[in-house]
């Protein structure tokens, strides 16, 4: 009986607490100074890509610190930025947090646009989210959407929302140079592709095939493993024995699982594997020394000695001294969110922060922007997708024994269609483009 009593009292307490929660959350603050420009940053803080939240935030915030006079309120990527202004307009930022599903990305985008009232949305992070957001952008023509790192081809090849801008390129562009590197430098002729079974790895494979096959190479097997597979051992076992090497297109846990299993079975990662852009990420360094010498494609010149890149890295790391060196700067998510925010700042500067007329002036400015970034100068094509410089980078053991990157090739002027190889109807899939 006493137990029952206690339970009821607990229950009432719970109701009271919940009531307070409702009351506290019911009135979102929507006060604005008329001249304040609101920017929303949408990334992932849950789900399979939760690890990239810090990286993408740090990039976007560092752009505000460096180019809009903002101050980081702390020493980590999670701390806010205050005092940023562009052409006299204070910039206020709000954050959206997805779990890499289109649903959640859409819900957060709607909250940011319709409830918080942001003028410009920077994001999202992953491919499927991007397609959903670009579709949503069509219904919000008086807002501006600047892509984060979402890399699906269709977003700008077939959806083509007029107010959706992508300064980082797509997943296929991020592998430009790697196909030729495999053919010409490594002398590979017969290659297998091993990757996760969804649109982003398919897109990356398309970028590799787009160079490797016209050059005369052959893809003898494509192994696509469903997302959510824990043990990748048998995926590795399916690699044919007569190939020159394989291209790995995975992220996070799956990358680590494959690299470990391949190395543990006596394979040599440096000579027999190439990595996709998500494979070339410091999060895989937990695998250790077998990674030494592994090369892959990346839209950012990881480990480059180019002054534009080194000053970016040094600046970033001085703003976020608490984070281990290399972990932020070594990520394409940091770099591309940084570029996206910079594009917003440059565009706003050109129009003096004037967002009137359904942001049409601002959007025109963005479309015509020639953005100088740590990874080269970026311009947009007629679909508002970037023409980028891409890089072949390599993981190397540094003098202190830790792992780091080195840029070994630079590929300028990479456009989305690979000079006509891809078009609006040629969406990459499990077995297309053929080879």
């Amino acid at each position, binding site marked *: 009986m006493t137990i029952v009593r206690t339970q009821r009292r607990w229950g009432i307490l719970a109701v009271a607490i919940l009531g307070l929660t409702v009351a506290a959350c019911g009135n979102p603050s929507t006060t604005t100074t008329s001249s304040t420009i609101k920017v929303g940053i949408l990334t992932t803080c849950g789900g399979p890509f*939760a690890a990239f939240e810090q990286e993408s935030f740090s990039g976007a915030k560092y752009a505000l610190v460096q180019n809009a006079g903002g101050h980081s309120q702390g020493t980590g990527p999670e701390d806010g930025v205050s005092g940023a202004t562009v052409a006299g307009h204070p910039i206020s930022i709000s954050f959206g947090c997805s779990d890499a599903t289109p649903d959640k990305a859409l819900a957060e985008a709607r909250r940011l646009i319709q409830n918080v009232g942001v003028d410009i949305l920077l994001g999202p992070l992953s491919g499927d989210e991007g397609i959903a957001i670009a579709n949503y952008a069509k219904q919000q023509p008086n807002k501006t959407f600047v892509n984060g790192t979402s890399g699906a081809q269709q977003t700008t090849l077939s959806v083509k929302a007029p107010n959706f801008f992508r300064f980082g390129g797509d997943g296929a562009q991020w592998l430009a140079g790697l196909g030729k590197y495999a053919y010409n430098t490594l002398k590979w002729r017969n290659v297998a592709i091993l990757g996760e079974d969804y649109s982003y790895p398919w897109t990356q494979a398309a970028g590799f095939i787009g160079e490797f096959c016209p050059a005369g190479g052959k893809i003898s097997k494509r192994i696509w493993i469903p997302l959510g597979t824990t043990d990748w051992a*048998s995926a590795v076992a*399916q690699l044919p024995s007569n190939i020159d090497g394989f291209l790995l297109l995975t992220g996070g846990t799956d*990358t680590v699982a494959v690299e470990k299993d391949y190395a543990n079975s006596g394979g040599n990662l440096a000579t027999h594997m190439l990595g996709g852009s998500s494979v070339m990420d410091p999060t895989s360094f937990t695998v250790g020394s077998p990674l030494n010498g592994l090369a892959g494609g990346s839209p950012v010149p990881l480990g480059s000695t180019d002054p534009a890149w080194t000053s970016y890295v040094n600046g970033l790391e001085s703003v976020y001294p608490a984070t281990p060196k290399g972990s932020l700067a070594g990520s394409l998510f940091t770099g591309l969110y940084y570029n996206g925010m910079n594009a917003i700042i440059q565009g706003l500067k050109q129009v003096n922060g004037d967002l009137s007329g359904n942001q049409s002036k601002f959007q025109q400015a963005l479309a015509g922007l020639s953005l100088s970034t740590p990874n080269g100068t970026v311009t947009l094509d007629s679909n508002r997708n970037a023409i980028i410089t891409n890089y072949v980078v390599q993981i190397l053991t540094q003098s202190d024994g830790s792992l780091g990157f080195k840029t070994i090739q630079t590929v300028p002027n990479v456009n989305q269609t690979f000079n006509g190889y891809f078009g609006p109807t040629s969406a990459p899939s499990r077995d297309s483009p053929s080879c």
Partner: protein
Amino acid sequence: MSLRRLQAELSHRLAGALALLVLFFSIAWVLIRALGLFGGTGNLPQFIVVTLNGITLAGLYFIVASGFTLIFGLMRVVNMAHGSLYLLGGYLAFRLVQQQALNYWLALVLAAIAIGVVGLLMQQIFLRWNQGQDLRQALITIALSVVLADQMIPLFGAEAVTTTPPSGLGGSIGLGISGVRYPTFRLVVLGLALLIGFGLWFGIKNTRFGMIIRAGVDDRAMTSALGINVQLVFAVTFFIGALLAGLGGVLGGTMIALAPGQDASFLLSSLVVVIVGGMGSLAGAVIGALALGLVDQLSGVYLPTGYTNFSILLTFALLVFVLAVRPTGLFGRR
């Protein structure tokens, strides 16, 4: 009435026969593809490696699922936080090995015991006072798993990490068949799984505590009426069950990798293992783990071309299939 029973009996038999047929057909299919019979090109070394992968993965599944089934068998508690305990155990050992530079085996023992204690606390605080309300207990553990999963992200980071195996076990060994090499640590996991399986079987069969557990599984009320301290037995069982999850996490974190989401996948695999094998049965866990591990690894390789993307569905098809034939699992009883 009797007609309906006859009908039920008949459909049951039919389903059983169908099950056997499908099983034979799949084995035949795999062998034909693997050995290259009837004019195909076989690949024996690949078959050996993939089968070994299946068996070693089954070892890992067994270690995790045996803890799950032990707890369920005795206490009727479906611990939906079992996967969270797995992941937490893996992370603890990772920290101890990589950051404190502790000896691997010591870290393994410490992490497993720590998870045992976490499980014990969970049982004492949240589950002890509502014994018998199995649904409510399942809901409580689901809530706990949501909180644990979310809290492990800031505590251990969201990126994938992997524990370095003890020196000498990190490489591969030759199998002596056409130059095939195989990762040593996977075989270590298999060995440990056999050891644990044997230990559990021996313990349950021959010790006094095991006798009490068997009695408790058969008739809980009678066992407590005999003056046995059931609460103590429950506490110890939950400790061991959680410890096994933690141990699995340490081994899994070394053999594969640790990341958010692994908690859910190992909870699901434990569920499949014990539903297929029969809830509460150790022998069932062995068979269930083997079935799941082999289907998991073989299906990706041997499904007909163009259908390999359905491999992940096949493990669940296995489950539906077993349930259709035997609703209580292969070794289950009501």
